[in-house]
């Protein structure tokens, strides 16, 4: 029994899962209606569904961020990329109500498929830029992506003209507001991306390659890995994932806001990755953990709203969570804690 418990608690998903479970349990206690699900208008309604829907964009960004962090990098430009992708999509779709033969139809500026592909291509291009700066030029990841974080926000504002662009094209709203089999469509997008990554990482050697780059880039190169190519690809994927998140967000709010879309999202994504048990020092990573991390952050936010605490406290709670998690991840802290617990119990014995 004890051995089984020990092995469970050592599983890398144990702590993220426990945190989420505790949060959900606390919710159920403080808010009796929390777990209630209703079937209305052909899909499920409820707090949990809401959390899933809202966590989807963050989970997408966190998935991309996980791979970047696994290679010992960091991408702080994802928030700006979210804003750029949203702006491109909203600009290309635009949309207006046209009366054709007495029937009101919504017309988009470009075909929606083309707009989505273009937005994702631009996002991937942003990732490519980051990746080239990191892998080819050899800049530190934080500074390489800082460039795009600063300039990218400006580009997004340039695209939107500093305004909020509203989209008037109903089919586009499906991405962020639609339902499939009774569940939000965004959840399926996030799940699909996770599934694809999971297969890539476990069924091919790519996961191992990424880990080895994170553990020791020089050794990975000597071992014959195309270290730079893989690093570039990881950043491209991170940009792409941020682009998908940007589409979901802009579809959800039916507009694109160059000034505020994806603001501080990079921090939430890094937090989600850290909460999921991926160390910022690179190497071992957990995709599922990052999804848990995103769910934890969203549940925390929802909890704070639902139990009537002013939402302003959200940031203080988040800060406290980050402090606790990073201390628990620190070997020095655990050693200090152990010394504190063990020494009095051992008495004078050596």
């Amino acid at each position, binding site marked *: 029994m004890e051995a089984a418990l020990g092995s469970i608690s050592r599983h890398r998903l144990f702590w993220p899962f426990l945190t989420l479970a505790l949060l959900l349990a606390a919710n159920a206690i403080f808010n009796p209606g929390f777990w209630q699900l209703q079937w209305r208008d052909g899909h499920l309604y409820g707090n949990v569904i809401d959390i899933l829907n809202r966590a989807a964009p963050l989970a997408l960004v966190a998935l991309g961020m996980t791979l970047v962090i696994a290679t010992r990098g*960091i991408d702080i430009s994802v928030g700006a990329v979210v804003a750029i992708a949203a702006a491109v999509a909203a600009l290309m779709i635009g949309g207006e109500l046209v009366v054709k033969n007495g029937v009101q139809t919504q017309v988009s500026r470009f075909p929606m498929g083309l707009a989505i592909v273009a937005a994702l291509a631009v996002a991937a291009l942003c990732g490519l830029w980051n990746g080239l*700066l990191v892998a080819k*030029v*050899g*800049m*530190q990841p*934080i*500074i*390489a992506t*800082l*460039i*795009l*974080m*600063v*300039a*990218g*926000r*400006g*580009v997004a*504002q*340039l695209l939107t*003209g*500093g305004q909020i662009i509203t989209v008037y094209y109903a089919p586009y709203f499906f991405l962020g507001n639609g339902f499939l089999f009774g569940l939000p469509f965004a959840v399926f997008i996030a799940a699909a991306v996770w599934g694809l990554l999971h297969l890539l990482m476990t069924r091919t050697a790519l996961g191992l390659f990424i880990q080895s780059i994170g553990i020791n880039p020089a050794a990975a190169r000597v071992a014959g890995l195309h270290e730079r190519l893989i690093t570039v690809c990881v950043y491209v994927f991170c940009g792409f994932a941020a682009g998908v998140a940007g589409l979901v967000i802009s579809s959800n709010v039916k507009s694109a806001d*160059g000034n505020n879309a994806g603001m501080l999202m990079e*921090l939430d994504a*890094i*937090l989600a990755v*850290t909460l999921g048990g991926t160390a*910022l*020092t690179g190497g071992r990573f957990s995709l599922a953990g990052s999804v848990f991390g995103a769910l934890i952050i969203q549940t925390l936010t929802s909890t704070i709203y639902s139990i009537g605490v*002013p939402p*302003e*406290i*959200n*940031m*203080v*709670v*988040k*800060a*406290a969570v*980050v*402090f606790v998690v*990073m*201390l628990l991840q*620190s*070997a*020095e*802290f655990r050693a*200090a804690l152990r010394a504190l617990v063990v020494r009095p119990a051992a008495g004078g014995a050596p």
Partner: protein
Amino acid sequence: MRRIDPRFVPLLGTIAVFALTAGYGSVAYTGFFSAQVFLNLLIDNAFLCIVGVGMTFVILSGGIDLSVGSVIALTTMVSAELVEHRHWSAAQAIPLVLAIGTAFGALMGWLIQRFRLQPFIVTLAGMFLARGLCYLISIDSISITDATYTAIAQARVPVPGTGASITVGAIVALSTLAVGIWLAQVTEFGRTVYAIGGNEASAVLMGLPVPRTTVLVYTFSGFCSALAGVVFTFYMLSGYGLHAVGMELDAIAAVVIGGTLLSGGVGFVAGTLFGVLILGIIQTLIAFDGSLSSWWTRIVIGALLFVFCLLQRAFEARRR
């Protein structure tokens, strides 16, 4: 001709960029070339300069401090709350907020040093915490009507020989800069910071007080942020949780453009002044032009960052 010490090349590059931008502005726009326009660069960016000095030390030691913007916001908020709602005098409030900022920096430095945590994530948490604390005080902006604060905010000190004047904030900024240069170039603390940034393990082996210095670096940055917050309070005459959002990025950009290598160990505090002035002059140019929108500032700063980082890489590659 004596060859220029390669250490000074990035700094000279920064000064050259500033001179070129200033020269371009003077030729292109009438009224640009005046003492007041240049002094305004210092007045409008006094807080950025102060934060930049603290950030320079952090980056020289090989770390990073993302909390500076939110510590500024917290300082304005606490000052406004104490002065407006609790009726403290400026002489009581200012030392207290300086102490809060310093303690905040010291705590983060201690966590980073004692538990070997990444500066990035510790100061990120510090950023959340300080912003959150602002909102705990109030979610609205508190304007300051206190007589001392408004008097200091409006005070102008004439600069002899130019007919122009500067604010108290700008004087504080210049003094901080002078102290920063002195700390970096003359004291044991400064030399240890350079040594840690160059190679921490070697610094430990040399017997330098690495743990103490690491904590002190973040403490100093915290103090600078609080001081910048005080100057920012004078500048805005209000406390608000959304003050100085993203200031940490501007500060990092100013330090990098000022020629300090992000890998640590190389750079000058004086370079940061020119980094700040370049950021300021870009904004002034865009304001003078009138036809360009404000977001061009961000794009140009991004482009400048890119160019300077490329130059840094080339510089590092040649040094090796």
